[in-house]
């Protein structure tokens, strides 16, 4: 079964967007780690994670995201999330991710919010 995700990295002003295509599982770790390292090395301070609305995200994938959140906190970076289905917005809230990353309804809203804060 296909396990890889694709992460397209884009700059939107001061915001670095990770446009994540595919399922987010424990196998996503090396891809997210590499994308973050590159963005961090370039000095990004604002990071936006955009998921596919129909993406499958399991607890392994959430663990990888939590590790990413930990790094952004250590490096004083702000992180936002967009693109989630209503179900996964609920899951992320249950797990407590929303204490560290705001979930936005649209990418445009996310970029504007991150840029101004």
């Amino acid at each position, binding site marked *: 079964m296909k396990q890889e995700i694709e992460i397209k990295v884009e700059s939107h002003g001061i915001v670095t967007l990770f446009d994540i295509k595919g399922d987010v599982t424990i196998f996503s770790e090396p891809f997210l780690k590499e994308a973050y390292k590159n963005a961090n090395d370039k000095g990004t301070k604002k990071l936006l994670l955009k998921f596919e609305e129909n993406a499958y995200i399991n607890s392994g994938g959430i*663990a990888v995201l939590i590790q990413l959140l930990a790094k952004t906190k250590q490096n004083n970076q702000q992180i936002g999330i967009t693109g989630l289905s209503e179900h996964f917005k609920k899951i992320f809230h249950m797990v407590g991710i929303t*204490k*560290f990353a705001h979930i936005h309804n649209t990418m445009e809203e996310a970029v504007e919010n991150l840029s101004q804060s």
Partner: protein
Amino acid sequence: MVIEVAFFMQGQYNAIESRLRIITLDIPNKPLALKYGETVNVMGEESEMVRMLDGQTIEVSLPNKLGYERIAMESSASFAKIIGFVSEKIEDLKTAVAEACINAIEHGNKARPDARVIVTMNYQDSLLSVSVKDEGGGIEEFPEEPDILQKIENLQTPRGLGIFLIRKLVDQVEFDKMTSEGHMVRMIIKMRG
């Protein structure tokens, strides 16, 4: 790979004759039609994968490999949709089933390639029951209650969220049910409430 499981019922839900149609959108790329009681080989697997045990019970046998929980997810979702569950409950069910299967694959069966995970779905009296059985000896130690602050500070493992999510998403769950063949987690979702 995407597997879509569609259930076509003749007459009443509990009709004796039911057809289970599985469409694989990968290899092989053609629909397979099953009659009641028949089994199917999917993706060249020697073992049967999905079968109907009776008019209200479906069994899915999964290879012990991460990723295959998707089959149980989609099967349970299709089953719940046919019964008439609302979308939100179906999504909750899918995640709970996925997490139970992942636990069975990783921890119950200890990632053994020769083991199987058996998922059994039954609908009766407005209750959808999904059991996930592995060949292991039960849960040795339940993970501690997840604390996001501790996880962010690296004081708690970022993993260990599966059981937490299952408890939050279904109406009732029983862990540590030992069977003659291993360990079973049984989840119940009520159609209403």
